[in-house]
């Protein structure tokens, strides 16, 4: 469904991604794990078109999107929950969700999507008139995910949803990620430093190290791999 081939990305002279290739099949949850600065976010930002690759291909449902502007990529069906949530802090929860549905014009459909988000995250419903900046970290993460779902993506790129959250909340967020995948059939590419959680929900995984994919395979094999355990699972 989504495939990247031999991606080379530079920040000035820094080689951020070096021949990165990965693929995500329809219906999967795929995790991309790695340390801080390994290039995980860069990979997602390149898929969304926020950064341009110097070389390589990004193919979504058979179409090359390496030169497509980001807003068109959203229209094609790729949603992206960015690192650090990036909610519109000065706007209300409701306005954030409305912006999530920016590419849609079916008013009734938008309303029912919003209701779905509120059903999934009742706390957002309670705070729908509140400014997003006044929400807690966990609530902001829920809002960021809900906002991305408002565009009805077929693929969701999730960038460090667990960042800065208490362990219980992390578990809640990951449950929701699984639910979204299972109930709504949304394919998910998940980037995480919390490798344990990321591999527990994924079917497959990739390990990124200083811009290179060093390991890939079934999530449970990766979780059992001694190198992965040593480097990322604190075993």
């Amino acid at each position: 469904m989504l495939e990247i081939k031999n991606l080379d990305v530079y920040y000035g002279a820094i080689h951020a991604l070096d021949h990165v290739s990965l693929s995500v099949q329809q219906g999967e949850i795929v995790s991309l794990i790695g340390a801080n600065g390994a290039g995980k976010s860069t990979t997602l930002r390149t898929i969304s078109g926020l950064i341009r690759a110097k070389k390589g291909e990004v193919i979504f449902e058979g179409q090359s999107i390496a030169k497509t502007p980001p807003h068109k990529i959203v229209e094609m069906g790729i949603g992206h929950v960015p690192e650090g949530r990036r909610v519109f802090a000065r706007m209300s929860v409701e306005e954030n969700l409305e912006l999530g549905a920016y590419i849609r014009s079916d008013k009734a459909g938008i309303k029912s999507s919003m209701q779905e988000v509120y059903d999934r995250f009742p706390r957002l419903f309670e705070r729908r008139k509140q400014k997003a900046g006044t929400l807690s970290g966990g609530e902001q993460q829920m809002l960021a995910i809900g906002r991305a779902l408002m565009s009805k993506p077929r693929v969701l790129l999730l960038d460090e949803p667990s960042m800065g959250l208490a362990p219980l909340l992390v578990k809640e967020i990951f449950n929701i990620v699984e639910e979204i995948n299972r109930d709504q059939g949304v394919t998910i590419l998940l980037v995480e430093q919390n490798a344990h959680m990321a591999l527990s929900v994924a079917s497959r995984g990739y390990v990124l190290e200083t811009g290179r994919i060093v390991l890939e395979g079934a999530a449970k094999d990766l979780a059992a791999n001694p190198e992965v355990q040593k480097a990322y699972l604190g075993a």
Partner: protein
Amino acid sequence: MSEALVNFLQQLVNGLQLGSIYALIALGYTMVYGIIRLINFAHGDVYMVGAFIGFFVAGWLGEAAIIPALLLAMIGAALLGVTIERLAYRPLRSAPRLAALTTAIGISLLLENLVRLYVGPNFLAYPEMIKRVNHYFGGVLISNVYMIVFGTAIVLMAGLQYIVVKTKAGKAMRAVAFDKDAARLMGINVDGIISLTFALGSALAAAAGILVGITYGRIDPYMGIIPGLKAFVAAVIGGIGSIPGAMVGGLVMGIAEQMVVGYISSSLRDAVAFFLLIIILLIKPTGLFAEFTQEKV
């Protein structure tokens, strides 16, 4: 009413009118700053071009053509603003800010001199689009020109406020102003929204240009310099980036200027703006409606 009170109210009324014009211009500064962090020093000249478009439209269609003049000037200035952004600022989007700022000053000089080339350097008498009728309310003079100028300014500002707060495009503008990448991830065409911002700001400036022409009866190619600077100061006083701030800042500026002219000396007319600027920078540098206070994480 006592003479002192009548005098005070008269200054207040005049100040509100002047201030509503500053506010219209200040909105363009603040919106553009809010969205691309650029102080668009060519904005005062877009206001001037708007006044001239109105001047020529009245020349073709007759003096009474205030509504077509206003509409065509707003459309023409919107196109001009969008073109300036597209050709001069967009290529510099990722360049150091100073480059775009210098370019803005260059565009300002270019517009002034192009208009000067075409119409000459002298004042031109503005067509009398409205036949002045004076009304007195308890001794305070409020002419029909005043009512039309102030009323137009208020209607335009209310319209802008509606667009920004209620419409989808307005929400997209606020999103882009807050976080461009996050806005892109919503499917917002950021370049399109930046163009829209320039179009709206320029259209309001053009309206201000015509209202000034009607009020003071004369225009020239350099008429945008001082009002442009004052409106910029008004935007800073209100809190640059804040739309309500620009409106309030403009009104404060107009009233302060008129009070100083009325009670102290008209030779201090242009000094007031900069005096206010110094005061606000000392007391509350982020402006009355601070928009840019906390650093984004």
